[in-house]
């Protein structure tokens, strides 16, 4: 491994500080220099906190010097520009909120401050986090580091690109229908959507209160686990927070033979790109070879998941956007056209979708009694070119969230990990989704996968 810090894990960076190979100030300065060179090409960041990162780095160095190093002390972080940092603009990638200065920190910003981490900037995103491809005509075009002509995936596009291009050690994304996992898959990184309600959303702009999740995006599942140790937990000020204790720890004696991995034969492999199908089935075989109990199953009810996800999400989004719609000229056409599709939903219809969501979740809970993990592709389609992705209703835009949205509905923990490259050398993501609130198990299966494979170590030539 090279001596630069750009692709080092959280543990490796911690070790650099502990052994005094470099200070936080030196590391953050190195990242800032790289951002200045690469960001104009890929537009991962909307704002870089150069001055604040110097102050934060000095503070972190002082803590380390005094022996107060914590899990994420001095770790370089990118935050999706949907997350409040006091005194900074939270634009949501929108012209409507371009002057929206946050009055206080989000809960996770507070968590990172307490750890003396270095928040290095705000990352690019789809306007109001409402889109799957990562296109936003309001902001400089965010580009996939694996091929600058292709989309990065959305809506946490900049967070995925920043991690993939080595412009931070990890980033934070939000996921309402797959917005952490889709860009993670397309950019060849690891993206984790935790169980619903175990990471506070206080100070993070809503898209849909029933489907929104906040999660880490990193080079590895092990790094995601480290971040979850810090950001998970009950927050009384977030009305959607679950009052439960989650335990996050690496399992040393992982008992593969006790873990049932189900591979659904229907829906998740219907009409998908052949390269993706081959790669994911090959991953399933690898899990089998490793000693996991791998079984093919049918999930008859799953076909309805996407419709229910959208059926709940869109009226909630319309309700949230009621305050902005008078300013409809300021929306990008793509997001406005998508949003307006949800006009005129009746209370009866919203209630029906909400009840059907429970029926779906009940069926999924029964299924998950028999299995620990569902193994599927993260997305069904190849990464499209930016020039072919400007209309709101392209096939790729409509299909991209077909698989991920199912787990926003159920609230199950779900992770996308790299599983190989396509013929055109673009990353392919494997999605592992576990039982509700068994986040640690999902992360540990993903950690085990990454112990046995090298796909997450592949880097774009940028």
């Amino acid at each position, binding site marked *: 491994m090279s001596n630069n810090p750009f692709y080092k894990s959280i543990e490796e960076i911690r070790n650099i500080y502990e052994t005094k190979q470099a200070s936080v100030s030196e590391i953050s300065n190195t990242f800032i220099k790289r951002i200045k060179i690469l960001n104009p090409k890929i537009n991962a960041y909307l704002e870089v906190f150069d001055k604040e990162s110097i102050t934060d780095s000095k503070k972190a160095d002082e803590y380390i010097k005094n022996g107060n190093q914590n899990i994420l002390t001095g770790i370089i972080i990118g935050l999706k520009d949907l997350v409040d940092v006091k005194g900074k603009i939270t634009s949501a990638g929108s012209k409507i909120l371009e002057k929206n200065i946050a009055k206080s920190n989000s809960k996770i910003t507070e968590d990172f401050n307490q750890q003396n981490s270095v928040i290095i900037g705000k990352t690019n995103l789809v306007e109001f986090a409402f889109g799957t491809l990562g296109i936003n005509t309001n902001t400089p075009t965010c580009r996939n580091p694996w091929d600058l002509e292709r989309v990065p995936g959305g809506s946490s596009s900049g967070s995925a690109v920043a991690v993939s291009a080595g412009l931070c050690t990890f980033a934070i994304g939000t996921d309402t229908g797959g917005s952490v996992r889709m860009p993670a898959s397309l950019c060849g990184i690891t993206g984790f959507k935790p169980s619903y309600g175990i990471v506070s959303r206080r100070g993070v702009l809503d898209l849909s209160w029933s489907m929104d999740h906040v999660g880490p995006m990193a080079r590895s599942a092990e790094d995601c686990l480290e971040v979850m140790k810090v950001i998970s937990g009950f927050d009384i000020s977030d009305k959607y927070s679950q009052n439960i204790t989650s335990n996050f720890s690496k399992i040393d004696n992982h008992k593969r033979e006790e873990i049932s991995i189900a591979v659904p034969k229907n829906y998740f492999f219907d009409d998908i790109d052949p390269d993706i199908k081959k790669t994911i089935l090959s991953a399933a075989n690898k899990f089998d070879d490793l000693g996991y109990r791998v079984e093919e199953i049918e999930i008859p009810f799953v076909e309805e998941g996407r419709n229910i996800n959208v059926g709940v999400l869109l009226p909630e989004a319309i309700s949230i956007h009621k305050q902005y719609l008078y300013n*409809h000229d300021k929306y990008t056409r793509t997001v406005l056209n998508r949003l307006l*599709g949800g006009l005129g939903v009746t209370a009866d*219809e919203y209630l029906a979708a909400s009840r059907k969501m429970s*029926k779906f979740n009940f069926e999924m809970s029964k299924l998950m009694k028999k299995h620990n993990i569902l193994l599927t592709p993260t997305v069904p389609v190849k990464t499209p070119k930016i020039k072919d992705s400007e209309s709101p209703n392209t096939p790729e835009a409509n299909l991209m969230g077909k698989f991920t949205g199912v787990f926003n509905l159920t609230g199950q923990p779900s992770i996308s990990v790299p599983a190989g490259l396509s013929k055109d050398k673009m990353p392919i993501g494997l999605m592992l989704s576990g039982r509700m609130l068994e986040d640690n198990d999902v992360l540990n299966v993903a950690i085990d996968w990454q112990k046995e494979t090298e796909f997450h170590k592949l880097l774009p030539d940028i």
Partner: protein
Amino acid sequence: MTEFSSEDIFKSLLDSKNINLSKEDFDQSYLSYKNFRKNYKEILDDDFNHFEPRQRIFDLSDEQ
């Protein structure tokens, strides 16, 4: 009684919010609207009234 087309209803929803769209934007938004109406028709075609809305955690101790 006058029958309103789906397009008329969508136009009136836009009017009620003072939203004026170009022809191209109208066509794209109307396409999203039509897809969404179809989506609800499918959702409503089921029996789920004994479920509470938006539930995610269940007691499955009696389930096989």
